[in-house]
């Protein structure tokens, strides 16, 4: 099966080339037979990629250490689940995984193109096959998981212990599912540009796949934050590492697109802007991959030392050049079909929101690349870390939070003064009330106060919108509150699913602002020793050391300390934190020791304990109080649920037509209904 998989990879390379060539030729020459052959070539490439992937999984699960990839990323004593997830744990496997997802996505997207969009198929299929060909070629020539060692080791090196975490088993696939999904809108955008069919047809396909990409990126980013928090032990979830930034960039432009597409659907405006956002989202996914895998930027992820950077740079430049050419030569076809009636309208508000989202994306990209720019200009290396990103992005983030509340309150086309007063009165009052109460309670951090004031405002806008809709349903249909709520959401999933996403954003920002009150304590404790600390909310905590213990389990030596914990005099149980030294089947140490954090979570905040080291039987600990962290995960989940509601297909309902309907009968009778 392993040999079959390896062979399938090379056949996929040929099939991909065939699919791209015949699809483009079919599109250019208008030959249906070539287009059909291109589609079949794409399906065959997908089948070959599935075989190639099964081959690698087989090699991993059967411990075929003659493959360098298997020996580098697994060992015989690793739990099965992590052997399975080792598929995407290393460079070559992750590239194959990327190509696999792209192949499957492409086959689905091309198979289910609506009949009215058939003209787009040759170009979309060709573009997807080209992207797929690039990834397969990268796998074959630069990062081949089937590369063999000149000898067969008895055991492998194993997986970095920090990757042996359930979050890490599912976080990368979600991110890849998100990244790769940006290829489909890109391909259809290119197809629409080539064929100049830039009206409604391509928008439907693009919107669905953009939503899918956004959904998986949201889950992937949230899971990545959770993994960093529970596994890395530095008491935070976002470090503005280039790899993290690379995942955020397409999410930001994708979010901007999902807002601006509504303006094109409803008003026929922003047609150029939407095409630019679609292609930019894809190009950022590629560019992010390039900067994190080329080694041009320092990152904790050692993908940075990989040899695929030049390939990605070339591909990125080619894709960017092609895109610029097509957009530039189709500008006239992308003229808006309507004009703006007022600067105070929902479409204008969405545009402001777009400017801020793209502005944040730019600032993240700028900060990520600034060390390179600085080195070019000044010749000296600098670090652009969290203090820089926070300085620049916190104000922009707050601006975005405010706009999250403003957009839904303003009417389409033109908002009257009375409309604005009516819509804004309660939310603005609610936001101000939150700010004043927090100030009165002693909160003095400026950014946190603004964040909670805005969060109160946006939360109130969401409640107000739901309350209006639910009240209307109860009045008209006499439904109970839960039924009215469910039906309100079910009947208008895009709108109310969107509000649920906004609710998730509010929760996230409230949790982010909580970090302003984070407290770290650096303590040393011998067995039986007691420490007392006060958390940011004034609770008194007592810790009693039960001493350091050592043990050996499945594939690791463990050094642990247990702490008896009391809060305000009430026992909270025992919290354990560990250092683990993983070893191979010959008991030889693998990798650096890793941290297992002791975490006690509550709605108010986390108690976060890290065993930093043991010297002379004294444990060196960092005890952190991290307010509101659990709400980051809850906020992410709410956003994902909202996204799922928005994505869920809605059956077309038969509605009685509104307005006058003329019936053309032989007897020339006029039927009118309202």
């Amino acid at each position, binding site marked *: 099966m392993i040999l079959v998989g390896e062979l399938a990879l090379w056949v996929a390379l040929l099939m991909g080339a065939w699919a791209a060539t015949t699809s483009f030729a079919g599109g250019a020459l208008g030959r249906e037979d070539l287009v059909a052959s291109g589609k079949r070539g794409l399906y065959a490439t997908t089948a070959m990629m599935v075989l190639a992937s099964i081959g690698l999984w087989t090699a991993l699960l059967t411990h075929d250490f003659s493959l360098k990839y298997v020996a580098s990323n697994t060992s015989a004593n690793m739990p099965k689940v992590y052997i399975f997830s080792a598929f995407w744990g290393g460079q070559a496997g992750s590239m194959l995984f990327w190509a696999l997802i792209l192949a499957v996505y492409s086959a689905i997207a091309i198979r289910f193109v609506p009949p009215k969009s058939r003209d787009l198929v040759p170009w979309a299929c060709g573009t997807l096959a080209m992207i797929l060909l690039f990834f397969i070629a990268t796998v074959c020539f630069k990062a081949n998981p089937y590369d063999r060692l000149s000898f067969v080791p008895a055991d492998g090196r194993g997986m970095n212990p920090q990757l042996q975490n359930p979050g890490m088993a599912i976080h990368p696939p979600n991110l890849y599912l998100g990244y790769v999904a940006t290829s489909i809108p890109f391909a259809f955008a290119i197809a629409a540009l080539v064929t100049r069919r830039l009206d409604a047809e391509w928008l439907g396909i693009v919107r669905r796949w953009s939503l899918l990409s956004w959904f998986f990126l949201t889950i992937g980013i949230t899971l990545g934050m959770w993994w960093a928090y529970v596994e890395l032990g530095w008491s935070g979830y976002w470090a503005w590492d280039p790899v993290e930034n690379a995942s955020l960039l397409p999410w930001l432009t994708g979010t901007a697109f999902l807002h601006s597409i509504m303006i094109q659907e409803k008003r026929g405006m922003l047609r150029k802007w939407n095409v630019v956002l679609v292609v930019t989202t894809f190009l950022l996914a590629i560019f992010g991959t390039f900067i994190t895998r080329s080694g041009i930027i320092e990152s904790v992820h050692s993908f940075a030392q990989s040899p695929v950077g030049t390939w990605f740079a070339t591909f990125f430049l080619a894709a960017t050049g092609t895109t610029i050419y097509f957009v530039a030569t189709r500008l006239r076809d992308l003229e808006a079909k309507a004009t703006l009636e007022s600067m105070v309208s929902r479409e204008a508000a969405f545009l402001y929101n777009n400017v801020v989202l793209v502005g944040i994306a730019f600032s993240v990209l700028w900060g990520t690349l600034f060390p390179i720019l600085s080195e070019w200009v000044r010749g*000296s290396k600098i670090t652009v870390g969290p203090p820089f990103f926070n300085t620049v992005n916190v104000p922009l983030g707050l601006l975005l939070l405010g706009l999250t509340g403003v957009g839904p309150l303003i009417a389409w086309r033109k908002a009257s003064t009375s409309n604005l007063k009516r819509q804004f009165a309660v939310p603005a009052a609610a936001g101000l009330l939150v700010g004043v109460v927090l100030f009165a309670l002693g909160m003095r951090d400026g950014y946190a106060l603004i964040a909670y004031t805005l969060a109160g405002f946006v939360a109130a806008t969401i409640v107000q919108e739901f309350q209006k809709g639910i009240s209307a349903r109860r009045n008209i249909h006499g439904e109970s509150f839960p039924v009215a709520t469910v039906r309100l959401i079910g009947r208008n999933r895009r709108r109310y699913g969107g509000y649920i996403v906004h609710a998730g954003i509010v929760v996230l920002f409230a949790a982010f602002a909580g970090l302003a009150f984070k407290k770290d304590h650096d303590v040393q404790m011998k067995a039986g020793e007691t420490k007392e600390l006060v958390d940011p909310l004034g609770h008194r905590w007592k810790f009693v050391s039960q001493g350091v213990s050592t043990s050996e389990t499945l594939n690791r030596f463990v050094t642990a300390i247990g702490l008896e914990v009391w809060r305000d005099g009430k026992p909270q149980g025992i919290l354990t934190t560990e250092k683990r030294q993983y070893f191979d089947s010959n008991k030889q140490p693998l990798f650096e020791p890793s941290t297992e954090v002791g975490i006690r979570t509550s709605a108010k905040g986390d108690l976060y304990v890290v065993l930093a080291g043991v010297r002379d039987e004294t444990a060196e600990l960092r005890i952190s109080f991290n307010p509101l962290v659990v709400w980051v995960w809850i906020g992410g989940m709410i956003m994902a649920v909202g996204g799922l509601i928005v994505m869920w297909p809605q059956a077309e309902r038969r509605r009685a037509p509104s307005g006058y309907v003329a019936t053309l009968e032989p007897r020339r009778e006029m039927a009118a209904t309202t």
Partner: protein
Amino acid sequence: MQRREFLTRSFALGGAALFGARALQAQQGTPADTTGNLFDMNQGAARTVTRPPKPGARPSMDQDTRDALEHKIRCQCGCTLDVYTCRTTDFSCQVSPAMHRDVMALVEGGYSAQEILDAFVDTYGERALMAPKKEGFNWAGYLVPFGALAAGAAAVLVVLRGMQRGGAPAEVPMDGVVVPPLGTPDEMAKLNDAIRKDD
């Protein structure tokens, strides 16, 4: 060419490519392993940052202030964390404890936070700091994002005003809205006739 023949040839070509690649690999040897998942720690990155104590020196700051200062200094082991976070997270790193000892010595020697930061920059260069100093070219780093946002907002306002001046909104079908097909001239004539009779 028949489909079966096409597939057979594809597999034959794929097989040839596979064995060609294998032969090439055997000739060149296995490429260096670049598939590690996380960074490799540089344990030898620490350099000594010392200054003679100031006359009659007393500690220049308390522990909390010193910890805050260490949050501004980057550990040089390659982890991308600051000194405080690295030394309190990972006992295998020998770089951040060494840098911490230097910070403590400078604090004991009566040096201010800025003087300590300057001492680290003198030794390691500006990459010793978690964020670039707000001076010279670095201002571009801090200001360009806001400048770009302002320029973007201004451009949007200009475009919106231009669109507003463009006159009344055109009555054209919007993207995404399914517009029913227009009636034939004959049907439209019948409709006009019906409407006239209704009036």
